[in-house]
Every structure is written in C-alpha cells, then in structure tokens.
C-alpha cells in the first residue's frame, strides 16, 4: 500500500500523520491515500511536531526545573546571573560533547578525546612557557589534536579495531605520553596569563568566550549534519553501515574523517580549557569524559529521534548544568547533583523509548487495523 510505505520511509514533516492516513485508508471502498511526499504539512502539524514532548522533552523538563528552582530559591535562581553562570560553567563540557557528536553520529566512539584535551593544553602551555609566541604554540597544540585524530582513525578504520577499545587504548597512550613529558607536574608560567589566557577568560557582557565558541561549533555541526549530503551519509553510516556501503556511501572514509574532526575539536577544546585554568594541567581533561558522553547521549534523545545532533547536545548540557547549578544555589546536599544527573539520564532515555515504540508500533497498528477491516479473503 503506497500510503504505508510512505509513512514508514518519509519524514513526519512531509507526510500525513499516521492516524489520519489510517483513518482515510480504512474507509470501506476508499482508495488508498496518494503519497503526500511533496506536500508541505500544515503549519499546525509542523508546530505540533516541533514542540512535541517526545521531540524536545528535555526542554520541557528544563522549563520545569527553572520553575521549581525559581520557587525554591527565588532570590538567586531566576536571575540573569544564573543564566550567565550556567553557560559559562558548562561551556567546556558543551565543547567536549560537541567534539564527540560527529563520530557518534557515524557510530564511532572516541574515548580518547578527554586525553587529547589534556595533551593539546599541555603542549601549548609548554611551548608558551619556554618562550614561543602565542600563535605557533596554539598551532602546535591544534596540530597535536589533528595528529591524534589521524592516529585514532588509523587504529579504528585501517586496523579494524573496535572504536570503543581502540580509542580507550590511544587515550591511555596519550596519558602515558603526558605523564612522561610532565612528570605529573602542571606547567605554569606568567606567559600563560597574557594573550593566551584571553582565549578562555575574556568576558563579553558577562559571557566568557568559550560560550561563543560553543555557538560557533554547534552551528557548524548542525549545518554539517542537517544540511549537507555528508551529514546524511554520516547518519546512514551510523544507523546501518552495511546498507550505507551498498548505497554507495564511503563508510570508511566518513568514519576516518569523523575521528579526525573529533580529535581536532577536542584539541581546540583542550586549548580553551588550559587558557581558562591558566596552566597546563596533566589531568585537566579527564574529568570531562563522562559528562560529555552523558550530554551527547542525552542530546541524542532530543530533536532528532535518536540521532546525535548539535542542538540536542546543547539542550542536554543546559538541562544538566541548570539542574546542578540550581541544586548548588539551593544548598542541596552533596549527593543530589549525582542523583539528578542519573535520574535525568534514565528518564530521558525512557521517554525516548516510549517515543520509539510509539513510532515503530504505529505502522504495525495500522496494518492490523486494515487487516481487521478488510473483507475476508480480500
């Protein structure tokens, strides 16, 4: 039945909703509804889709959190200062989460990104401390990120080692390299306090520059994933690499490049982190490993129905950051923050599960309905 095929394979924005299509098809003697691929959905349907709970559930949860904390701590939470604090405090986490969004879209893990962050920061701090000028030192740090991305890509794509294990191994090697080079000592110098510090500490209207970097990177990833053929191919690679390969997608090349991009972005994030803390700390990046993955996976439940995407990642970072900041402002006990993150993650994934089951079940239910209404032997 054309209608059912259409429903299963096209985006909800350009098709008749499943239930109305089913109703039309179910009329005795009625012809199946013509495919509506080229007809734009009514504005009301598009708005309903855009603001559907199962699409942006985290935004509603975020709004609920804002309301709860505004009532709970009315003096400090519902202020512009809180908004600035949430953005400033979570900008690095957002950058780290965005760095792994592209490889995750291609179903590739990059567990080494946190160590890459540390390494590039330590490299830039080292060269700055020995007298190198700003641009070459930053350039060397960025180059290290690219090189690590290439190494990761060789390990995962060329050597065919599972990305989870492969990047865990390269991460361990990177940490060993850092410890070997620094003996575990942070690299400090007054030279890190000048122009380099401005990369992370410049304040514009109460917002630090890393917030701006987040916006730039997020827009870039959004454009890549949503508005280019490469983005579509990345998602295809992530969902079903074999099918994508049969469809002519150069899966290996995309995975290779996704890891290079991830290494580069993680490297840049490490430079921003080092500029923010003012020293080449040999362990600075590792604390971002779990928060970044939590944000990326939570973000995948938002906006794009299970696809890793930039907007969802930002929503996730904001949700987690707002909750933890609100709890801190409310002087909540020390365990509340971890509990909040855990509950939010499970609940968000549960919402996604409900949504997915609903999506998957809808065509099946329509078929069942048609079968029941169809004359016997028909």
């Amino acid at each position, binding site marked *: 039945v054309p209608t059912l095929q259409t429903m299963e394979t096209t985006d909800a924005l350009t098709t008749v909703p499943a239930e109305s299509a089913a109703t039309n098809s179910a009329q005795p003697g009625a012809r199946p509804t013509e495919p509506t691929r080229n007809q734009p959905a009514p504005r009301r349907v598009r708005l309903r889709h855009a603001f559907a*709970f199962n699409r942006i*559930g985290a935004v*509603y949860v975020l709004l609920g959190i804002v309301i709860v904390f505004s009532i*709970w*701590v009315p*003096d*400090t939470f519902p202020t512009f*200062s809180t908004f*600035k*604090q949430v953005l*400033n*405090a979570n900008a690095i986490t957002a950058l780290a989460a965005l760095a792994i969004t592209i490889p995750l879209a291609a179903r590739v893990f990059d567990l080494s990104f946190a160590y890459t962050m540390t390494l590039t920061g330590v490299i830039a701090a080292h060269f700055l401390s020995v007298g190198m000028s700003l641009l070459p030192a930053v350039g060397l740090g960025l180059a290290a990120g690219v090189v690590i991305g290439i190494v990761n890509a060789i390990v995962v794509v060329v050597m065919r080692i599972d990305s989870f294990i492969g990047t865990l191994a390269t991460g361990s090697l990177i940490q060993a390299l850092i410890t070997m080079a*620094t*003996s*575990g*000592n*942070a*690299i*400090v*110098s*007054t030279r*890190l*306090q000048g122009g380099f510090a401005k990369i992370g*500490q410049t*304040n514009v209207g*109460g917002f*630090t520059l890393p917030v701006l970097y987040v916006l730039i990177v997020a827009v870039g990833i959004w454009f890549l994933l949503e508005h280019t053929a490469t983005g579509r191919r990345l998602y295809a690679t992530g969902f079903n690499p074999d099918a994508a390969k049969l469809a002519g997608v150069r899966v290996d090349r995309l995975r290779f490049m996704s890891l290079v991009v991830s290494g580069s972005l993680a490297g840049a994030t490490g430079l921003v982190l080092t500029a*923010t*803390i*003012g*020293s080449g*700390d*040999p*362990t600075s990046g590792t*604390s*971002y490993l779990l*928060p970044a993955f939590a944000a990326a996976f939570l973000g995948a439940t938002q906006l794009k129905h299970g696809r890793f995407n930039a907007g969802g990642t930002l929503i996730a970072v904001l949700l987690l950051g707002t909750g*933890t900041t609100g*709890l*801190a*402002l*409310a*002087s*909540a*006990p*020390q*365990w*509340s923050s971890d*509990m*909040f993150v855990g*509950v939010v993650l499970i*609940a968000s994934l*549960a*919402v996604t599960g*409900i*949504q997915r089951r*609903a999506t998957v079940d809808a065509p099946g*239910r329509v078929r*069942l*309905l048609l079968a029941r209404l169809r004359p016997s032997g028909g």
Partner: protein
Amino acid sequence: MLFLTPARSRIRRAAGVAAGILMVGAVAAGCGSSGGSSSGSSGGSSGGSSSGANLTAAQQVVAQAMQRPAAITVAQPVGKAIPSGKRVVFISCGVSVCQQQGQIVAKAASALGWTASTISTDGTPTSVQAAYQSAIRQGADGIVTTAALRAEIASQIPTLNAKKIVISDASSTDPVAAPFIYNTSTATQNTRIEKYLAAEVVADSKGKANTLYVNIPAFAILKPLGPAYQQYQKQLCSSCGYASIDVPLTQLAKAPNLIVSYLRSHPSVNYVNLSVANELDTGLPAALAAAGLSKVKVVGQGGGPTDFQYVANGQELALVPYDYYSVDYQMVDALARHFAGVPVQQTPPPLWLVTKDNMPSDHANLFPDVTNYETQFMKVWGKASA
C-alpha cells in the same frame, strides 16, 4: 480498542516520566537541605565587624607564619650507625604527585646506602593490597607510603609483622602501631595550618571576614581542619562569620561552579578557604571573575604549581603548601632510626604560609619549605661529612 493507543496517552506517559524527574529531584534535594551536610555549619552569615577582632594577634601569627622555616622538624641526631643495604619500597597512591614522592624517597634512601623502588597503585583497596604483597615478595625491609589504613591491609599485616617489615606513613588517620612505626601530617598536626589561614584571613579583612570553608569529606584526614579553622578564626575575630560546604569526589571538576553558586546565594561571604587547594581551585579564579566575584579572596591548604601561580598573580590570597620534600625525608628518617635501634619520634611537617609577597621564584614546580633540608637530614643521620 485494545490495539490502539491514542497519541495523547503516549504524551501523557512521557510527561509523567518528566514530572517524575522533577519530583524526585525536588524531593531529594528538599529532604537533604533540611538536615544535610552541605547546607553549612554554624556561624553567622553576616559580614562581621572589626569590633570583635584581635588584629594585632592575627598579624603576629601571620608574620611568624610567613617566615620560611629554616630548620627541619627532626632535631635529634640518630646517634648510632644506620645500617646500609636496606631495601625500601614506596607504595604510590597513583596520582602524579605521589610519583614525585617516589623520586624523593629514592634519593633519601640512596643517601643512606639503601635501595628503593616504587610500586604504583590506582588507589583502590585491591591494588593497594596487591602492592603490599609485592613489597613483601620483593623482600622489603621498610615501606614508605601515604594515608595507609590498617583495615585496608589487614590481611597483609600478619605477614608484615612476621617478616619484621615496618611501615613509615604520612597523613594516616590510624594510630601508630606495628607494623606502622611513624605517621606525620596527622590530623592534629595539620590544625596549625588552619591557625595560619585564619590569622591571614582575619588580618587581611581587618576583622570583617565571613569565610566559606570548602571540605572534601572523602579525605578523612581533613575532617578536623574546618572546625579548627572556625575555632581559630573565632579566637581572633569573634564577629567573623563561618560556614562550610562539602564537595564529593565525583563533583571535584565542578567545584568552581559549586563555590560560585554558594557565593551567589550568600553574598556576604568574602573569603573562601579550600581544604585541598589543588583539588578544588582549578579554574576557580576564572569562574569567580566570570561571575563578578573577583573580590572574594581565596586561601587554602596544599596546592601545586597551578595554585602557586594563582597566588603569585594575586588571584588567590594565601596557601599553606604541603612540603613533600621534608615529609618524605622524615618518613625515611623514621626507618633509619628504627633500623639503627633508636626510638622513633613522631614529628610534624614544616608549615609555611605563602602569599604573593613571599612566594618563591621557582614556584613552577613543587618546592621545599626548608631550602637546605637535604643537608640538615644528612647531618642528623651522621652523613654530613660524606
């Protein structure tokens, strides 16, 4: 209609899950905040006034504390020949600074004609137990370590005692008893750190301090420090305020945000005292600046090169660093006395209040409080002429 679930019903279910998040979060936090450990301790929340402050006493303590220690805390010479050829194992906690301690211990052991090796752990009980078993197999005569707990190595203690392997420790909360022969940087000894910091805060604020103490509960050795600070501050300034928050290990990376949040909700707080500076203040100056809280001054215990740089830049007010060099030599000294048959004295670590004005120029690395500590230890070991 058994086979059809209306869309509204699905949305209601999803909304129910979301509501659950909010309720669990709110109830959990609400329950805790009424009687939890992080909502602060006693102490006034007002800024206080100079009327109740003994500024002269505070300034005297600061002046004394800022004098760089000239002598190690081990004054008594060993007085007997220290046997050579001993094997010492340093059991490392796994973090980078412990690796450096291994090098210091090796240098001290070498000066006594001993051999030294380091066994790394990741801090987990199983890895620590494995390290002790390795040390036993290596034929160690003595073990040097930090923050060892008797309960953690209970199964190894009989073997250690049977083989007469002794442990020289630092920052342990357990009393000294075989196989342990020495423990320095004890909780009691460390309270002097808070005396220095309280005096610095009272003197700097001219008796108008309202301090937030930031504790890490996972480090049991730190437990008395917050109350000690509160007590010393009260002695020097009865009108100064005090409160504390706890930061769990899992939240260390978010410590600057937690501190900023507390300061925003308690705007009268003008000083922050960090129980372990190097664990809590990475990125804190930038976070304070971004939140418009640069006037809040930060002091703390411990610290590494990053923290020293913060002090040198004026981004933090003062630190009492941990003198790894003297402490490691003291632990080796205890072994030397034990092997020589001399009673082991429980000596404290040297302490030094460091501010922008007296920060050593070579603060890009850890530095010893006592500049010629090696020479002084060689002298008490009877090796000065070597």
